[in-house]
């Protein structure tokens, strides 16, 4: 039995300990916002936070999570449904097309903007490496800048 937190709620996982967190979230906890894209940590669709750090859940076994805290896309907005500024920026810039990669992109951006609160385009280029097959990169870039401004209180 492995005990950890998911979106601040305690969970006990009794499946196989080598199960990747991605499949524990999806098959066992029915949190399907985190997506499978490649299974090898390449595309970033499965990005979640573990103890505040962005991690690729498809290559993170549940056995490594004892006592740790996982945040998924479903836990990003606050309990009243108030969106995180990054979600808000994504919405305002209408980033998604098919939408499949966007949970992972948003989770990657949450960590990125913590480290780079006023990012340059070069910062984005060298840090955001999630794949978007629809090619929404033009709007992702705009949304990251908008989110940074929202978080800095420069725009409302």
């Amino acid at each position, binding site marked *: 039995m492995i005990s950890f937190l998911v979106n601040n709620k305690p969970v006990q996982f009794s*499946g*196989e300990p*080598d*199960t*990747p967190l991605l*499949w524990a979230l*999806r*098959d*066992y906890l*029915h*949190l*399907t*916002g*985190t*997506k*499978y*894209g*490649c*299974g*090898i940590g*390449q*595309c970033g*669709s499965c990005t979640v936070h573990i103890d505040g750090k962005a991690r690729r859940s498809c290559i993170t076994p549940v056995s490594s999570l004892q006592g740790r805290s996982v945040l*998924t*896309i*479903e836990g*990003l*907005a606050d309990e009243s449904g108030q*969106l995180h500024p990054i*979600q808000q920026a*994504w*919405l305002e810039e*209408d*980033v*998604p*097309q*098919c*939408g*499949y990669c*966007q*949970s992972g992109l*948003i989770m990657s951006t949450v960590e990125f903007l913590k480290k780079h609160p006023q990012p340059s*385009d070069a910062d*984005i*280029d*060298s840090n*955001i*490496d*999630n*794949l*978007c*097959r*629809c*090619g*929404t*990169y*033009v*709007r*992702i*870039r705009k949304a990251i800048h908008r989110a940074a401004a929202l978080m800095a209180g420069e725009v409302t």
Partner: protein
Amino acid sequence: MMSKRGRPQGAPDLSRRRFIIAGATASGTLLLGIPLTSFPSGENPSEGDGRIGFYIQVLENGDVAVGHAQPEIGQGLRTTLIMLVAEEMDLDWKRIRIEPMPLGIVKTAEGYTWKYGGQGVGGSTGLTNNWTYMREVGATARLMLMQAAAQLWNVPLSSCDTRPGVVVCESAGKQATYGELGKLASTLPLPTESPELKPMNQYRIVGKPQHNEEVRDIVTGNIKFGSDTQMPGMRYAVILRSPVLNGTVKSVDDTGARAVKGVLDVFPVEGPEPGAPYHILAHGVAVVADSTWAAIKGRRALKVEWNESPNKDDSSEKFWQQNAEMLAGQGQLVHDQGDFPAAIAAADKVVKHRYEVPFVSHAPLEPQNCYAWVKSDSVHVIAPTQMPAGASRAANAATGIERENIRVDIARSGGGFGRRLTNDYVTEACIISQKTGWPIQLFWSREDDIRNDFYRPGGTHELIAGLDDAGKVTAWSQRLASGSKYYRRPNMPDENLWQAELYPDDFPKAMVEHFRLEYFHNAIGLPRGSWRGPAHWVNAFVVQSFLDEIAHETGQDPLALRLEMLGRIDEQPYDGHGGPVMTPGRLVRLLKFVAGRIDYGKKRPPGRGVGLAAHFTFGGYAAHAIEVSVSKSGDLFIERIVAAIDCGFAVNPNAVKAQLEGGTIDGLSTALGLEISVHDGQVLQRNFTDYPLMKIDRVPALFEAHILDYDGTPTGVGEIGPPPAAPALTNAIFNAIGMRIRKLPIAGQIQEKMT
């Protein structure tokens, strides 16, 4: 005001009890019977509960549920089609609930019919097929709400009008919300005539940028894709497919797989005969388990021996070599106008080059998947599919259960790009569910998806142009050796294989007197299918590259050469995607526009250059201007992109721009890095490590997407953007460093040459 629309002469009178017949052709293009009335209501929807036809339900609180019957694959159709209804029905945009609809298949004495009209997205027709239809749905519902009000207030219908969500009768000083009138309206008979539609100058929703209606559910992770389907009692399945094209199972040792905790069953799945049409792509062995991870582990533990395949020696090397050998001979002359050989013999200058365009995979980010539950007399399928009627056909073929007892729910697709026009994964899921009796969710890994696809065909193109002494192109030929998309299509004669790869009416047939197309088929064992734009992508790359080569070798400016050739005619008949007419002036307008935006004529420093390209397809027109720089060590930087589209009329400019942005990036991504290759009969690529889709670092911040409206008729959008992007890029590379890219992908070619 527009006059009342009449019924086309000779068209049948569709009563309430008739269905609209629609079907899919072998190429996957929908032949859609546009309903003459708004509601092809063969079944009477229950009356008195606010339902008006199949698509609309007015709720008492004033919310309006609008049905959405088409697949959503990221093109934004769920928002765009609802806009059409909302405009004509005069809805409050904030009070709309979108209700997904399953496949509307019904059996009649005459065969299967589609009670919601044609359902399917391919060939960039999702909007154009529904443009009139969905507006009529809205206009009819509005009319019936006004009829209800007129009846209630005992006033003439002509005195009633609407404001968003409200019917008003100013002369009687009365008004009522749609919510108050919905019940009564739903008891009225459906009109049998097409309703009057709004003139465009009164639009308040259509033609204005609207947000994606589903974006909040996407950014919160709540939106459900096919792979998110979770049903009671559901098991998880994967298939180990033959690694060699057309391989078959010789023997299976499932001891290890069955020893994996959670594995429930293991059994072989039959694939197609070599050369026969595909119902599924490959022979394999299914593993069914109580979780995805157990299924994956079980599959890893399988030991399978495969029989030798007839395609065991297939290789890309051989493919390119055979193409070259074929091009040395004479192929099938599929179009021959004027006297090409004589024109070439008499030409003042002849330009000739070859281009190689590889096979590519669709690689939608959500791999194929399907939920199926096959019971003794019914099937339930939930699938991300572009062709739900094909899913129904696949389920029927796999199970033998009558199609009217097969429910197909259309799941949101994590990308389409043409991959989900085929429903091979639906067949697989049905086979597995029928064998086990369980509801199952079939999972494809990324490796499964890249190695088992209906690939865009690769080919070698030889282009020849003859110019007269004034430098005018008078003769043109394209000779193509390729794997045809029509390979292994049912009832496809060999002499028609070229039709999927060469489109005779494309530029520059109508502009030159002597014009030839010649085809050679290469029967490499890779499965082929439709990939966004199909052959337009490939042919635009080749033709637009070659134009620049002609310009360079004859001392002309690439833009001036294009404008001169496009300017030779005003209009041409166009038989094929997006016909019946092509207007070259619309490409001229776009080319001039993008050239102006990027400052085309400006002198640039060494290592920096611009390139242009333009193409017509699916009724739409697009052009790109791209600026690049190349470092001394051969590193390529895309500095600036200007993209422009003329899609006639942009119903949702926000979605059109999104498609143009994404389509451009799709084109560049594919040109930069993507190739499917084969060795010893096996696809070599496995995952995004060796199939490297473009990431954000190669997309410049200087990226403009422009819409140039033309008239009031919307065209296709999704496949218009990609074709000119790749040649604009390679033309820019040539302009920067004088290196011509004649083989895709670009990959490391520039570094190799410069170091």
